[in-house]
């Protein structure tokens, strides 16, 4: 009796093991995840795609698309990453999954510098009543989006209002205060040629600009006063106007270049020394 029972149990166990449908798929998934964790992203994608091909019932659809997207993101292949995140989004079974894939999509858009798209995604999530509890996460990435679209003042507003990360708030504030106003540089050079250059710290250029403008301005006006119209027009047009518009152009250029230096310094810090979560 006992040996017959044992045999029955043994065969039943075998049958159950055979019928367990996901053993091989799960194994494949696990080995692909192993490759992903070892940062062998190209091979991980191959194994994920293999599983995807054989997963006829789409049991792993969401996870596969998500991980393929993450692998592409790790290799800086942003276009592909976003496509797979969008596919993951469409295959999301739960709200959590949907949210995660959307956030990853937004983060990849930030890295790709297509900030309008990430803004749209984050605003959509913000307006979605299902994710009210996740508002901190949404705001955090909205802040980063402003950093990458060079709107440091708006980034500071986000980071300070929502008590997210004081390091980031302080950094954004200091960058915003250091930045030059490009409009101010341009318009002061409209009024006094060379002043925009002085504002941006380019003193030599400012002095030269001012000097040339004074010289040719004097020559043009004296030509008109002495009724030498042709001379006046020639000097005014080919010399004075040139240096006047050059001054405005240079003021703008110096302001933009200096601002770029300032923001690049902050971005470098964020990339290499900031310890918090990055896109």
């Amino acid at each position, binding site marked *: 009796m006992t040996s017959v029972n044992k045999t029955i149990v043994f065969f039943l166990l075998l*049958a159950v093991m055979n019928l367990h449908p996901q053993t091989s798929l799960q194994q494949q998934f696990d080995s692909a995840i192993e490759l992903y964790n070892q940062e062998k992203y190209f091979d991980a994608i191959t194994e994920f*795609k293999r599983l995807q091909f054989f997963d006829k019932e789409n049991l792993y659809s969401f996870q596969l698309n998500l991980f393929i997207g993450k692998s592409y993101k790790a290799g800086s292949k942003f276009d592909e990453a976003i496509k797979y995140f969008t596919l993951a989004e469409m295959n999301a079974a739960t709200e959590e999954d949907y949210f995660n894939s959307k956030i990853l999509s937004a983060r990849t858009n930030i890295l790709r510098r297509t900030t309008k798209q990430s803004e749209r995604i984050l605003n959509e999530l913000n307006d979605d009543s299902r994710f009210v509890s996740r508002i901190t996460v949404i705001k955090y990435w909205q802040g980063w989006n402003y950093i990458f679209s060079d709107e440091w003042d708006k980034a500071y507003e986000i980071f300070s209002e929502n008590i997210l990360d004081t390091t980031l708030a302080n950094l954004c504030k200091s960058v915003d205060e250091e930045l030059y106003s490009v409009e101010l540089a341009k318009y002061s050079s409209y009024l006094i040629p060379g002043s925009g250059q002085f504002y941006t710290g380019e003193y030599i250029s400012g002095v030269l600009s001012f000097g040339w403008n004074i010289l040719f301005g004097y020559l043009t006006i004296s030509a008109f006063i002495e009724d030498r119209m042709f001379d006046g027009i020639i000097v005014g047009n080919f010399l004075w106007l040139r240096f006047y518009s050059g001054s405005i152009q240079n003021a703008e250029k110096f302001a933009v270049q200096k601002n770029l230096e300032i923001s690049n310094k902050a971005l470098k810090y964020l990339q290499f020394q900031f310890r918090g979560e990055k896109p």
Partner: protein
Amino acid sequence: MKTKIFLILIVVCSSIYSQRIDFNLPQNIKLFADFLFCEKDYLRAIEEYGKYLEVIDNDTVKFKIALSYSLMNDQLNALQEFSSANNSSTFYEQSSIEILKSLYLLKYDSTFYVFGNDLINSKSQFSTNAQKLLNTSIFLTEKGLPDKNIFFKPFESEEKLFLEKFYDQKLNPPYKSETAAGIFSAIIPGSGKIYTEDYGDGITAFILSGLLTYLAYTNFEHNHPTRAWIFTALGAGFYAGNVYGSIASAQIFNAKVNFDFENGIRLFLEDKDYFSPTYDFCK
């Protein structure tokens, strides 16, 4: 005993109906590789096909590996793989015409012509394709063109229609003469550039030279010698510049004629995929 048979049956049925998939089975590797090939994920397809070939020898798979290299534009590896097909292979003739395409793209000119001529004489189903490719390639060399009828024999009517203007142009390129351009501009400033179809620059050169000559003349007349000499010097400079520029303009015009010609032929060949056959591996 009956129980045992019954239990064995259960195990057998369950293993038939189980969804255990062995990903490393050769046929599964091939299925996946075919999928990758049709998705244009060629590098991965090549790796998978390679794994398959370690276990089973198959002409189609070998050909598809070579084709994947070719489609990724890695002609060196494609050439190597296509060349490994011997005449017992199912794809021997297709491999030969693909080898010709790779030789052309790699610019191995002498081998290209020898191999091409062999292929034409071999009475393969792709002899006409080879002839078309060889003939078209003559346009991009310094070789003389054969007689028109002989040249256009292998081509279809719409191909002939397209290539005829290239044939005529190769015999009579519409170049502009540098000497003529220089002489025209020496007589009337700017006219050389108008001859070389640089209309805007020609008119500008005419106006500048004319204006400066006029200014020099009026200043001499009104007894302002310094200004007059400055304008004369500038005028002379612009005049010399205009003659020089017209000669350069003719050279650039001719370079453009050559460029457009070669580009036209290249685009035609690309469009025809170098007369290589199309395959229906992915329906």
